[in-house]
């Protein structure tokens, strides 16, 4: 059996790089990457050389210099004496705030509208169609500006609330003021606050200073609430176990409600929690929480716009679940809302989550339209005023791009973890 000849000794020749299909694709890829790298190097070099000709260098030390401008919505302490870097952080927090609020609201709106669009009720499904098509097909900027204009032009000025017969009055028992500068809602203050500095006594006739509040107070309250939540979950799990074992479910709702509410209520009482309503003082309302027009317009527009897309995603996810699934559920005697919650939605989620991630990313990036209504997000602080006052366009834009890149990757990373937990477990 020596008919099999030895395979010819592989001797590598340079021409094989082109003519041999084993090596050709490798050759092409290497050459293409070299060309791309050269192109990028040329672009970067060209930018640096031309900026140099203009007398500009790339430096980031402007971040450490004094910003000099004020920002209206601050989630952390900031004044005009702070640095540009801190101003950028204030902007970043504002971006995160509106993105977070927007993602939550858009999800709620989107899931509701998506489910309702499939409703058998003709009026409801048509109304949802109008909503989805109306918001999906008009540019987001127009919605932001429209809501902002409605707020500014349609609502009363703070000075209309003044006088014996004011042109406008506060709603909800003098607790909420809707003005053309935003909505003022009550806040919770703590009389025995742990961290807050004692507020200055108000001179004009009022004896007690307004109760303060600090991060420590809220950390305490939310921490207790969080712990209670896990406590009541434990009770539920225990009840589930008993039900599995004996078939009888102990009544636990009062226990769970008690665990959820009572510890938090005690902490609030000890801290001396008190509702502080906004009231008119000087030019504006003071106290309470000021939801600025810009935040409301941006938040609503982003939520409604992205919600329309999410509604379509939800609808497609539900329709992707085979009709046999719901028929089987009905055959078992399940009610329609059980069918939806226990059978359809869990399966639909597998189709819904991946495109939902990109909608969250869209919403976050679209929040950079904030400048149109003067919302001080990171685009307006770092990418707007800071760039303008320091003349560092390239550096500012690079930082801004980096921020959005990191934020988007973080969001998709977190959502991918969630996606892995709901996707079909293949065994």
């Amino acid at each position, binding site marked *: 059996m020596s008919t099999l000849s030895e395979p010819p000794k592989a001797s590598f020749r340079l021409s094989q790089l082109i003519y041999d299909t084993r090596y050709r694709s490798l050759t092409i890829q290497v050459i293409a990457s070299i060309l791309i790298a050269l192109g990028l190097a040329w672009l970067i070099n060209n930018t640096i050389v031309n900026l140099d000709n203009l007398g500009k260098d790339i430096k980031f030390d402007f971040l450490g210099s004094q910003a*000099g401008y004020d*920002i209206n919505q601050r989630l952390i302490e900031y004044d005009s004496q702070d640095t540009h870097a801190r101003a950028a952080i204030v902007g970043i927090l504002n971006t995160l705030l509106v993105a977070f609020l927007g993602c939550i609201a858009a999800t709620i709106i989107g899931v509701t509208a998506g489910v309702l669009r499939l409703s058998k009720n003709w009026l409801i499904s048509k109304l949802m169609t109008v909503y989805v098509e109306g918001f999906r097909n008009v540019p987001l900027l127009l919605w932001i500006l429209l809501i902002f204009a409605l707020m500014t032009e349609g609502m009363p000025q703070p000075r209309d609330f003044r006088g014996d017969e004011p042109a406008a009055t506060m709603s909800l028992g003098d607790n909420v003021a809707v003005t053309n*500068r935003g909505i003022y809602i009550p806040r919770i203050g703590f009389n025995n606050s742990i961290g807050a500095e004692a507020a200055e006594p108000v001179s004009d006739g009022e004896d007690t200073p307004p109760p303060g509040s600090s991060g420590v107070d809220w950390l305490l309250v939310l921490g207790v609430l969080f712990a209670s939540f896990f406590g009541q979950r434990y009770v539920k799990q225990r009840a589930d176990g008993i039900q599995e074992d004996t078939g009888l479910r102990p009544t636990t709702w009062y226990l769970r409600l008690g665990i959820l509410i009572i510890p938090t209520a005690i902490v609030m009482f000890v801290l001396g929690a008190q509702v502080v309503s906004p009231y008119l003082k000087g030019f504006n309302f003071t106290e309470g929480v000021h939801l600025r027009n810009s935040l409301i317009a941006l938040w609503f527009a982003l939520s409604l716009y992205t919600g329309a897309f999410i509604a379509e995603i939800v609808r497609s996810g539900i329709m992707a679940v085979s009709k046999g699934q719901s028929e089987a559920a009905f055959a078992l005697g399940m009610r329609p809302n059980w069918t939806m919650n226990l059978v359809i939605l869990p399966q639909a989620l597998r189709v819904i989550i991946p495109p939902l991630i990109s909608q969250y990313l869209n919403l976050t990036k679209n929040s950079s339209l904030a400048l149109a209504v003067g919302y001080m997000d990171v685009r307006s602080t770092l990418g707007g005023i800071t760039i303008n006052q320091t003349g560092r366009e390239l550096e500012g834009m690079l930082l801004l791009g980096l921020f959005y890149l990191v934020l988007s990757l973080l969001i998709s990373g977190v959502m991918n973890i969630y996606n892995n937990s709901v996707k079909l477990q293949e065994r």
Partner: protein
Amino acid sequence: MKHSVLLGAITVAGFTAGAAAADTLGDVQERGTLNCGVTTGLVGFAAPDANGEWEGFDVGVCRAVAAAVLGDASAVNFVTTTGQTRFTALASGEIDMLARNTTWTFSRDTDLAFEFVGINYYDGQGFMIPRELGVSSAKDLDGATVCIQTGTTTELNLADFFRTNNISYEPVPIETNAEAQQQYLAGACDVYTTDASGLAATRASFESPDEHMLLPEIISKEPLGPLVRHGDHEWGDIVRWTLNALIAAEELGVSSANIADLGAAAGENPEVNRLLGTEGELGSYMGLDADWAARAIAAGGNYGELFEKNIGENTPIGLARGLNAQWTDGGLLYSPPFR
């Protein structure tokens, strides 16, 4: 959209700036039009009239330069810029000069690498407020909501003023004068602050200007003037001396009414003769012909005429000359001699 404009401008800066920095005069003459950056619309300084023709005090400077360089006062391509986009537009070469009531400051001159060629309006930052609020001094503005054009020096002055007086305010940042006007009239802010001249111009365009007043405090020095890029000194000279020619013309009594006579032949005043090119050839030093200044003055009149026509006391804006009078009348306008 602002995003793409800015990024686009940066890209343009990356690619074309090297070429554009060299010879602006040659570029303008070859193109046949002057690209002049102006505001998005501030009545009296730069705004399109009913026929869409740009007019105003800053526009007059653009037209004068176009007349001097190209011989045609209408050969101007007006590029609108906001407080945010103006410097990028100039640095990238999108515009040849910026005449957009821009304050001459140290950092803009040095760090941003621009060249302010002179001052065409001495201004200061003021406050406008509805009369019905009954405020008589800016120091009573504690807690007020203030509309402010973002990306301007006024933003920094405002922060300084309220901080040094130890009072608080709520800033509402706004992109353009038109938006600020709308917000202010809707009552979304109590106060509007910008250069006093701009306030007067804005107030003049209100339906009932009398219901609004300017507070007496002027909280800053705002010398406004045209500017060009660093690096092309010949072009900077042309813009600088065109502005000086307008100022000198008023001082020497040369106006659009008598320039045809004075410019026809050498007269008795040697300074006027040198200015109008009937004696000597100052224009050739800048690469222009002898009539350059005569054309610039004929385009819209001398400085005084431009002032009276656009923002003076007989216009709705009604600004007094004040600091902007000739030095001979107790003002600050003082052109170096033409010789």
